[in-house]
């Protein structure tokens, strides 16, 4: 009839039902944060890129978007914070259980377009999760990029994610700086917001790409500060969050003005994102 001719390519897959993945490992990162490692129980999804996300399904409860915090072959790792019914179910899921996964969805971080440039990773809270593959990717290719700075903001010392691994990053040559909002007794590190660490990061602003993820208020403050310090808005990549139900661009929830975040995001450059996040309730 007169329907448009659309080829059912490999992209038909993510719009289909979730594939079962088995929980191979679960580690607790912070009181309300856990990292789960998922292995395909049968067929695997197409390969994910850093910055992309999956819709992870707790059977019977529903699914939520979770970025990949590690990608090794077909194995997916997600770091999930228990904030609602579905995320609590996924946070509490035990090793050996099965969850459903759809994806990969969305845009990734533009690490590939940053060869030879200094890298500045700025993470607030759970925002470090989607940035972990960027750090790992940069460290896995020594000489490919300029200096690597990882600036991390956490609520308390106990809320720091991947604390062991961040030490390894430091040993591998990254400049890793962590600051907390609320220190406890034993903490002798930095106290303050993550942007105050910029003074101690080592980078050449015109030749730097920044990757920023965290609460939107923190993203706005960091991106403005970076622009002020001379980074081009198109060289500041931010990962934004809005409600997502389908991941396929069909449910309409993740609209942010002209952008469908599940399709055109979640990673946007600041040149595009700035106006969108500056209109309240857009």
């Amino acid at each position, binding site marked *: 009839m007169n329907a448009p001719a659309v080829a059912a390519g490999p992209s038909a897959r993510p719009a289909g039902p979730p594939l079962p993945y088995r929980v191979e490992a679960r580690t607790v990162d912070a009181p309300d944060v856990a990292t789960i490692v998922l292995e395909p129980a049968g067929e695997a999804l197409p390969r994910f890129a850093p910055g992309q996300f999956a819709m992870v399904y707790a059977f019977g409860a*529903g699914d939520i978007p979770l970025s990949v915090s590690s990608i090794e072959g077909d194995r997916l790792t997600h770091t999930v914070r228990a904030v609602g019914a579905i995320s609590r179910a996924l946070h509490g899921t035990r090793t050996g259980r099965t969850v459903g996964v759809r994806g990969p969805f969305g845009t990734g971080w533009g690490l590939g377009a940053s060869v030879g440039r200094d890298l500045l990773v700025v993470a607030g809270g759970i925002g470090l999760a989607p940035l972990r593959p960027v750090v790992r990717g940069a460290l896995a290719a020594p000489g490919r990029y300029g200096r690597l700075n990882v600036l991390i903001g956490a609520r308390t010392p106990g809320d720091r994610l991947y604390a062991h691994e961040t030490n390894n990053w430091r040993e591998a040559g990254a400049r890793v700086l962590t600051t907390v909002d609320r220190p406890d007794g034993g*903490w002798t590190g*930095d*106290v303050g917001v993550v942007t105050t660490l910029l003074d*101690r990061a080592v980078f050449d602003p015109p030749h730097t790409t920044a990757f920023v993820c965290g609460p939107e208020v923190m993203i706005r403050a960091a991106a403005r500060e970076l622009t002020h310090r001379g980074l081009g808005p198109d060289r500041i990549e931010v990962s934004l969050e809005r409600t997502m139900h389908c991941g396929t661009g069909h449910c309409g929830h993740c609209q942010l003005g002209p952008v469908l975040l599940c399709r055109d995001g979640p990673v946007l450059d600041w040149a595009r994102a700035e106006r969108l996040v500056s209109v309240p309730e857009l």
Partner: protein
Amino acid sequence: MTDECHGFLGALAPDHRTRLLTFSHETALPAGTRIFEEDGEAHRFWILRTGRVALDVHTPGRGTDVVETLGSGELLGWSWLFEPYRWHLGAQVLHATRAYEFDAHEVRAAIEEDPAFGLAVTRCVASVAIGRRLKASRMRLLDLYGPPGARAAPGGGPR
């Protein structure tokens, strides 16, 4: 990158920076040093070159809470510039620190005597130190990484 061209000093024009530094001497502060106490007289200030200093406040029954830390390039102390010239917080060296130490009386006298220098220094303290820290403090007031619910609005629950 030298300590003269970033942080607080980096925000001053070279001639004012050179002039300001004439009021300073270099100092080394071992870890654990109490630099000043809340409500003490603010007759000195520092620009940190290396190390880390904690600003703290003492609460009965709770001990000492660190409010913020300062590091390389940052100005330690601004109460010396404004009356009544008394510290609002205490300061303690966390990690061995090297710093330029300034005599506040001399700098205040120079500010009074040379309005151009005075404006430059006052602007720098206001924007680089006070303004930036005020913005940072307001952001921390939001407790952005805190658990949801405390600030939750109506319209269903998180997923």
